[in-house]
């Protein structure tokens, strides 16, 4: 972003990568897939790089309002400084915070989750699936992220994007509004679970297994981690867990 500004250019969108997308090895692959899609569609975009900082979502949901607001204030200063208007995020937690919680603190942006943006690109004809669909005949199930679905009511965009894959979309017993959490939200990702009789991601993996799907599509790097672990624990490594961006990048032959 700094470079573009120095050159006097303003990108169409800012790609908000998020902490997982920046640092987690698995999530970095999702980030790359999103970046490839943006490139292939001719979208002019920038990332903040070192100037990006945690939105504060995990701090806020763990009760640390002070830390959240410090992060928000810093990020808003950076975003407003660059005059950012349109943001796409690779993570529903960043998406929710930027979209719903920053406006009250002075950060007004049009924020889109990457599945929404990909849908837009496909609708506008800027992104086309390649011939010889790699997912033809596959059974895909979509795990709704809580902060894309319940928090923001977006159930359609990911499904419409998956529909372009020429695969069969099979819904889990609990989906959309009633989807079960992967267990990572509310800062659970960063702590051990309380005592119980099983892990949340293991319970959710049962829903996946019930569908007989070979691919679990996700829209959140944390869900991705949780579902990957769940499938591994169930010794079902034949089931692939991939973000929708990765599936699209493959189908559009961008890999």
């Amino acid at each position, binding site marked *: 972003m700094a470079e573009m500004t120095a050159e006097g250019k303003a990108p169409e969108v800012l790609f908000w990568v998020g902490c997982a997308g920046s640092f987690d090895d698995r999530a970095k692959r999702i980030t790359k897939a999103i970046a490839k899609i943006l490139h292939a569609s001719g979208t002019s975009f920038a990332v903040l790089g070192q100037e990006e900082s945690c939105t504060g979502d995990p701090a806020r949901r763990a009760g640390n309002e002070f830390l959240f607001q410090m992060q928000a204030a810093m990020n808003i200063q950076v975003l407003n400084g660059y005059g950012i208007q349109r943001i796409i995020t690779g993570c529903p937690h960043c998406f929710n915070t930027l979209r719903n919680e920053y406006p009250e603190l002075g950060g007004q942006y049009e924020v889109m989750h990457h599945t929404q943006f990909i849908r837009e690109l496909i609708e506008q004809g800027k992104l086309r699936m390649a011939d010889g669909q790699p997912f033809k005949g596959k059974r895909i199930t979509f795990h709704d992220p*809580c902060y894309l679905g319940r928090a923001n009511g977006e159930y359609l965009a990911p499904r419409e994007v998956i529909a372009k894959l020429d695969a069969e979309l099979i819904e889990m017993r609990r989906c959309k509004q009633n989807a079960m959490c992967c267990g990572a939200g509310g800062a659970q990702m960063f702590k051990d679970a309380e005592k119980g009789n099983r892990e949340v991601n293991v319970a959710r993996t049962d829903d996946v297994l019930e569908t007989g799907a070979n691919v679990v599509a996700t829209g959140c790097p944390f869900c991705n981690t949780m579902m990957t672990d769940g499938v591994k624990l169930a010794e079902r490594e034949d089931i692939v867990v991939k973000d929708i961006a990765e599936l699209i990048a493959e189908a559009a032959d961008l890999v």
Partner: protein
Amino acid sequence: MLSIVLFALLLVVAITLFAKRIRFVRKAIGLGRDADFSDQTPLRWKTMARVALGQGKMTARPVAGILHILIYIGFVVINLEMLEIVVDGLTGSHRVFRGIPGYDGLIAAFEILAFLVLFACVVFLIRRNVLAIARFRSSELKGWPSLDANLILVAEIALMFAFLSMNAADALLQVRGDAHYPQAGAFPISQWLQPLYAGLSDGGLVAVERGMWWFHITGVLAFLVYVTYSKHFHILLAFPNTYFANLAGPGTMPNMDAVTKEVQLMMDPTADPYAAPPADAAPPETFGVKDVTDLSWKQILEAYSCTECGRCTSACPANQTGKLLSPRKVMMDVRDRAEELAGIKQKEGAEAEGGTPLTARITEEEIWACTSCQACIQACPILISPMGILLDMRRNLIMEESKSPESLTAMFNNVENNGAPWAFPAANRANWITE
């Protein structure tokens, strides 16, 4: 004449007890902090009409939902009959509205609904006590809560039976040409009860008819008072509760303005950090929720509105995986504490404290088990948010008590120092581009 006086007395006693209890509950709800809901009035009415009046979320669980709607419609419609009962009671008339057009149809409709209510209540009793439905077997329902639920169902069955028996005896007396019982009403359901009473003398029938009439009206008035002490309060409070519902998405946490001020002060280079606060500044509020007095009054209203159906708990991922957390218990704890504290203040004065604070009822283990997935909010038929209370309690644990699981302290430190929840330097943020 005596019966008119007796009836009037009964009415006055019931209304007085009801009003007194409402005043108490208002005080209990008023223990909470101020909150402003004067915005978006049209949307608020619409939400109430859809969710409470229209039962918009009930059928997410079809069996319980449809049966509930039967009882709801039955309750609302049959209570029209109460109007006639009250007028009859106060004037000594009998079926005073029998002259209005469509009266027979109305009575027939009441009967059919009464039967449906009876049927639904029987099914509900079976669901609660015979079928092993998990959400009715949770530990927080042991004792009073499950007795409360059963009492309500049995009372409703008894009331409907009395209503139908009254009609059956009345119809028999009508056929026998009793002067006080002119031809009125149609009885599609209670005709099947007539054989039960057909053997009685005229006097016996009058006794049954009057007895059932008194039982029904006394029962209804007693129920009116009972409801305010019970989980069944939802029949009234669901309406204000949905009106005052959170209109932001379930995933949006309310902003703490006091913290915003602090942060602005810190980021303002011209601010004087040592400046004395203005003399008229309000004393700082507790951060987050430690006790019911730190909740908003709306959150206490939610607790009084909760009917302990347990849809939240059965949808909660923490609860499903055997954790201690049950969102329903959170609401019950809030209500019980508000009730306790309001009682203490009523007895010992407004400044009095004591009893068991919320933090001793809702443990840290429960508070930290929440994944903030909002499934409880989605599941609640009347838009209650147990999650909101848990997250507010986290705010207190962190910002007042500095108590958090160790790994979360590390996460906070990382966010503060590296701008990420993990210990990676910000300089590496864009490494994915070249890797």
